[in-house]
C-alpha cells in the first residue's frame, strides 16, 4: 500500500507537468508567438478552457502527499517555505491573469496581465523544479524531520538546474502545443520559437538526465527512464526541425513525463534526502499514514482518477480545433458588451462592417 501511494503521487506530479507544462510554455511564449493583441489572445485561448483543470493536478498531488505522507508534506513545504510562497504568488498572478486580461480593453491593462502571465509562467515551473530537485539532492534535515538550513540552502545546484531544465522543457512543450493548436502566422511563429528553443531544451534535458543519475545512483548505466528522457528530447528536437507538429508534441510529452518520473524513481524509497545524516532521510515508511487511511484513499483514487481522466480527455476532444488569430482580430462577442460601442481595432479598418457586426452580435456563430 505504501509503495502504491508513492506511485500515485509520482503519477499525479507527472500528470501535472505533462498538462500544465504546455500551459506554462504557452504562458511564457504568448507575447512572443502573438505579435499583437489578437495574436496573444489567440495563443492564450488555445489553453483557455483547459488550464484550470490542468492546475488541479498540482492541488491533488500536494493534497495526496498530505493524506498519504504527512511527514513529507510538512517537511517539504515548511522547509522550502519562502520558495513555496513564491510558487503560490506566481500561480496566483498567473491564474488571475488569464481571467482578468480580457476583461478590459485597455492597452496598459492587457500589457500588465501579459507580464503577470509571463513572469508567473516562468517562475512557477522553475521554483517547483527547484523544490523537486532539492528532494533528491537533499537538504539539511534533522532527526525530527525538520529543515534546519537557511533560505539560501534551498538553492542547491542540482535543484536550480532541475528548475532550469523544467523551464526549458515547458518552453518547447508549449511551443509544440501552439504549433498544434493555431493557424497561419501564429503557427509559423510558434514553429520558429520551437526551433529556437529546441537545441537548448535538448542540451538541458541530456544534462539533467545525467545529473539526476549521478545524484541518485552509483551505477554507470543510466536508468531506463533517464535514457527515455534523453531519447525523447533528441527525437523532439529532430521532429521540431522536421516540422512534424503532432509527433514533436508527443515527444515533448514523453520528455517531460520521463524527466519528472526519473526524479521520483531516483528518490525511492526516500522521499526527501537529508544532507545532515543519511539516517535522517525521510522515506516512504517513516512518513506514511497508517494503513487504514491509505486504504480509504486508495478506494477513492481508484474510483475517481479514471473518471477524471475520462472527462478531461473528453474536454480535449471538445476543444480539439485550432484557434486562429483572425477570430480575435475583430472584437469577439464579449460576455457582456461594453456600454459604449467598442472601437474598431486598428488592424481592421472600416470597410467590412457586415462581418464585424456578425461577430459582435450573439447571432453570429463563433469560429472557434
Amino acid at each position, binding site marked *: 500500500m505504501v509503495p502504491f501511494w508513492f506511485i500515485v503521487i509520482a503519477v499525479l506530479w507527472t500528470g501535472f507537468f505533462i498538462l500544465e507544462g504546455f500551459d506554462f510554455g504557452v504562458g511564457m511564449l504568448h507575447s512572443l508567438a502573438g505579435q499583437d493583441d489578437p495574436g496573444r*489572445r489567440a495563443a*492564450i485561448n488555445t489553453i*483557455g*478552457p483547459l*488550464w*484550470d*483543470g490542468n492546475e*488541479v493536478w498540482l*492541488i*491533488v498531488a*500536494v*493534497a495526496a502527499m*498530505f*493524506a*498519504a505522507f*504527512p*511527514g513529507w*508534506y*510538512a517537511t517539504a*513545504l*515548511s522547509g522550502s*517555505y*519562502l520558495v*513555496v510562497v513564491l510558487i*503560490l*504568488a506566481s*500561480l*496566483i498572478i498567473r*491564474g*488571475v491573469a488569464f*481571467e482578468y486580461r*480580457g*476583461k*478590459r480593453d485597455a492597452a496598459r491593462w492587457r500589457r500588465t496581465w501579459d507580464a503577470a502571465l509571463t513572469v508567473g509562467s516562468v517562475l512557477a515551473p522553475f521554483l517547483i523544479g527547484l523544490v523537486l530537485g532539492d528532494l533528491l539532492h537533499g537538504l539539511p534535515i534533522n532527526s*525530527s*524531520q525538520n*529543515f534546519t538550513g537557511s533560505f539560501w540552502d534551498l538553492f542547491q545546484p542540482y535543484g536550480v538546474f532541475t528548475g532550469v531544465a523544467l523551464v526549458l522543457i515547458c518552453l518547447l512543450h508549449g511551443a509544440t502545443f501552439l504549433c498544434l493548436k493555431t493557424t497561419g502566422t501564429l503557427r509559423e511563429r510558434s514553429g520558429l520559437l520551437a526551433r529556437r528553443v529546441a537545441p537548448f531544451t535538448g542540451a538541458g534535458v541530456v544534462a539533467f538526465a545525467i545529473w539526476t543519475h549521478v545524484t541518485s545512483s552509483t551505477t554507470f548505466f543510466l536508468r531506463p527512464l533517464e535514457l527515455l528522457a534523453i531519447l525523447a528530447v533528441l527525437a523532439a528536437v529532430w521532429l521540431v526541425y522536421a516540422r512534424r507538429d503532432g509527433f514533436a508534441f508527443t515527444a515533448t510529452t514523453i520528455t517531460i513525463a520521463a524527466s519528472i518520473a526519473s526524479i521520483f524513481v531516483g528518490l525511492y524509497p526516500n522521499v526527501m534526502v537529508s544532507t545532515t545524516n543519511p539516517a535522517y532521510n525521510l522515506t516512504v515508511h517513516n512518513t506514511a*499514514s*497508517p494503513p*487504514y*487511511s491509505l486504504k*480509504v*484513499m486508495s478506494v*477513492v*483514487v481508484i474510483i*475517481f482518477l479514471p473518471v*477524471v481522466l475520462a*472527462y478531461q480527455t473528453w*474536454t480535449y476532444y*471538445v476543444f480539439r480545433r485550432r484557434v486562429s488569430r483572425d*477570430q480575435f482580430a475583430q472584437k*469577439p462577442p464579449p*460576455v*457582456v*458588451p*461594453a456600454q459604449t460601442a467598442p472601437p474598431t481595432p486598428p488592424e481592421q479598418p472600416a470597410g467590412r462592417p457586415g462581418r464585424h457586426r456578425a461577430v459582435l*452580435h*450573439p447571432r453570429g456563430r*463563433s469560429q*472557434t
Partner: protein
Amino acid sequence: MALDLARWQFAFTAINHFFFIPVTIGLGFLTALLHTAWYRTKRDEYLRLTRFFGTLLVINVAIGVVTGLVQEFEFGMNWGAYSRLVGNIFGAPLAMEGLAAFFLESTFLGLWLFGWDKLPRRLHLLTIWAVSLGSVLSGAFIMAANSWMQHPVGYTMVNGKPQLDDIWAVFTNPVFVWGYAKVLFVSLVTGASIMLAVSAWQLRHGGDRPVFTRSARLSLIVLVPAILFTLLVGDELGVVEGTYQPMKIAAAEAQWTTCQPCSFSLFQIGGGNDDQTPTQIIEIPHLLSLLATNHWNGKVVGLNPLQSQYSKQFGPGYYVPNVFIQYWSMRAMAYLGVVVLLISLWGLWLIRGKKLATSRVFLWVAVWGAVLPFVMNTAGWLLTESGRQPWIVQGIMLTKNGISPTVSTTWLWISVLGFAVLYGTLGTVDLLLMLRYSRNQLPPARAAADVDAPVPAVQY
C-alpha cells in the same frame, strides 16, 4: 511571535478565501438555475441573465481558486507539527476534495465557458450543473475536515497519535452535518444577495426593467428560505457545538458562571476577557437556555467551572477562548442575519404588490445589503475558529504545539506581508471588476428568428 504570525496569516488568508467561496457556491447555483430556465423556456431574457451573471461568477471564481491554492499549502508551510500529527485524518478529505470536487468544478467550468457553441444544448446545461455540484461537494469535504478539528471522531490514539479508523464517522460527525448545512445556506444567502444587489442597482439606474425584475425576484425567492434556514440551522449548530465545545458557546455568551435557566444577553458593556462582571446588560430571560440546549430551563456551564474542569483534565493552562471576539462575532452574525431576513421579507412583500422594481428605497437598501452576508460569514468563522482556541484540534493538540518549529519569524513576516500586499491588490482589482461588470448593460436581445441559433462561446 512565530505563533501569532502564523495564526494571523492563516486567519487573513482563510477569511479572504471565504469572501469568494460562498459567492461561487451561491451564484453558481443561481446561474445554473437561470441557464436551466433558458434551456426549458428558450426565452431570451434568461440567456441574457445567464451570460450576465455568469461573467460575475467567473470573475469571482478566478480569485476563489487561487486563494484556495494558498490554503492547500499553508497547513504544511506553517502548521508542520499539526500536519504530521493529523495528516492521516485531516489530509484524507482534502485529497478527496481535489479528486472528486476540484477536478469537476475546474474542468467543467472551462467546458461551460468555452463550450457554448460546441456542445449540444442539453450537454452544455449539464456542464454548469457539474460546476455547481463541484463547488457544493468541495464544501462538504473541507467542512468534514474542519469539523474534525472542532469535534474529533472516528480515530483511536496509537502511541499518542490519532489514527483514522472510521471514515464514515468523519462524514457523519454532527458538527459536520450541521456546519455543512449552514455553509450551504449562507452561500445561497450570499449569492442571492449579490444577485439582488446587482439587479437592484440596475433597476435604479435604468437597466432593462423586465429582465432585472425577473432576476431580482428569483434572488428573493432563493434568499427568503435560505436566510430562514441559515438562522434555524445556525441555532441547531449552536446546540451541537455547545455539547462538544462548551467553552465556545459559554464564551460566545460571556457566561462566566453556570446558569439555569439562562438569560440571553442582547447587548452588554464589559464582561469580556479581563472583566467577568458586565456593567450594563440587556437580557431576555430563558432565551439562552433555549438557544444553547433547546430547553426552556436548560443549563449552560460557565467559563470558570469549565476552566477548572479542563485544567484537571488536560493539565495546567488557560482554556478560555477570546471572550470579546466570541461575544461580538456571535451577535454580529445573528443580528445581521435577522436584518437580512427583514430585507428579504420586505422584498417579498413588494413582489406581492408588484412594486419591486419601483420602490427606490428598497432598491437602495438591497444594493448595500450585499455587504451584510460578508460580515456575517466572517463573524461566523471567527466564532467557530477563535472559539476552538487554544486548541488546534479540540482536546488533542494545542494551537501553539501545531506550528512548524523551524520556520523563522523573518520568513513569516515576509510571507504575511507578501500575502497582504498580493491579496490587497487582487481583492481591489476583483472588486473593481465586479462593480464594473455589474454596471454593464445586459447582452443585447436576439432577434426572434435567432432563438435557435448557436450562442457564441466565451473567450479570454
